[in-house]
């Protein structure tokens, strides 16, 4: 007799997704920098901001209200609709 149990997980089986093609140049890209509000994340992002701007990219800055919680849906939507790439500064 076949024995089975019920799957206790969230059954998240995301379909395989191909990463987007690597951009040939940063010039003309709109890059979001997401500060998760950990101390000194801004130091790292300020420097990135300079480097990216000098490479011809447009930089937009975003901040999570707190690093202890996931980014709010509205913020994720804002980044997704305004940016072609995003960089997240993770920790202090």
């Amino acid at each position, binding site marked *: 007799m076949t*024995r*089975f*149990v*019920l*799957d*206790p997980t*969230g059954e998240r089986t995301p379909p395989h997704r191909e990463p987007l093609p690597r951009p040939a140049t940063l010039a003309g890209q709109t890059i979001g920098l997401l500060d998760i509000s950990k101390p000194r994340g801004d130091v790292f992002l300020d420097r990135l901001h300079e480097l990216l701007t000098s490479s011809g990219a447009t930089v937009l800055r975003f901040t999570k209200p707190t690093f*202890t919680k*996931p980014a709010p849906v509205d913020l994720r939507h804002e980044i997704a609709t305004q940016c072609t790439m995003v960089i997240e500064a993770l920790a202090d």
Partner: protein
Amino acid sequence: MTSPTAPTLPDGLVVVVKRECETCRMVAPLLADLGATVYTQDDPTFPTGCRSLHDSDLAISWHHDIETVPTLIRVVGGREVERTVGWLRDEWVRITGIAGLGADLPPFRPGCGSLSVDPDRVDALRALHDGGTLRSRHIELADLDDEMEAMFDRGYTDGLPVVPPTPERVLRMLQGTNRHPHDIVAIVPPDLVEVTVEKVAVNAVMAGCTPEYLPWVIAALESVCTDEFNIHGVLATTMPVGPVIVCNGPGTKAIGMNSEGNALGQGNRANLTIGRAVQLIIRNVGGGRPGEVDRATHGNPGKISFCFAEREHDSPFTSLAVSRGFDATANVVTVFAGEGPRCIVDQKVRSAPELANVFAACLRTLHNPKLVIAFDAILVVGPEHARVCADAGWDRERLLAELHARLQIPGSELVWGAGGIADGVPLHLSDVTLPKFRPDGILLVHAGGGAGLFSAMIGGWANGAMGSQPVSREVSP
């Protein structure tokens, strides 16, 4: 949960019987004259003298809630309009419309239990007839698989064995709630996955719960999956905290929770498995696993389960739930992001002010004697310490006021570097007096055994909007 494909009954009279039942055998000779459709549960040749249909998989009995045989039902237009169980001559005469039916039989004889409610069969029947309501993916076990090991191999456990969640067990667990299996209970961090009542039941089975614990698991899960409690942060922090679940109300006794000796320890099924079920859901549904999103430096043993009831019956204090605005008759869970308990010992104390002194001195050390305001605590007052308060006429409010008054600390003792300890508060606060706790930062609970002048304190994680707030919720069936 009757299936939409439940078999319908033919119009007219329907009788369900089994040969094993003496009352069924007594009424059998009458059945031929009734023109009834007869379903027999056990022996397809019974009863003789009339054509009977064999309810071999007990589908008719299951879906039409036959609890006793014989059951006589009258069906009109495909719908049951009346029934009687056992042999009650007046009722049989009334329903059949046959005067003098069974005139030579005694007026009354009770029936027997239906095979469809036989405790040895009921779980399998529920899986057979109601199993279609379950939506969870089936995980097939190979013939040679050890089912307990299979659960470890797939990463479903917290490090201890779990009860394999078979459809039979999950369906039995679902009997513990009135909620539909497909109802969404919460969205579980960190993966933000919707969890259904059914999925809660699967994990409650694995944790070792009985069905009557399920509403408590659901209420606790709803509480931890709020923005205020912030289980995402509680999980991701490097601090050693997890959900501490304090249960209040008469239901705690009804499900056999422990609020007395060893209430915070091992040995009580409800205490241990309710908290464990919540943590298994965070792990399995939410995807929160140690080493992944759970970044705890040390963790604590309470992260397997930390759940206990308040000792309400002889407490000198109003209960935690009442203090948080609930009725004393309500069943309530309060979740708190806490570490393991530590003991407060004072066996000489005989006066309430002395008790407040030792509580305050110990609470002052929470996490670091120089860190203030940022962390809450549960203070679990043991019965012998509580008696000292009762003798002095101190209630909850008085004890808390006395503690807060003793926990006002000069900033000069707290600033960075003071006392040779690096951590603390910024130097500009050296002339300010600061409280160890915010005004509602001590949650008072009465629990423990009758002997021992001990209490316990449970330190919290970062409080406030960016950390975790205690959350209380009423348990509903």
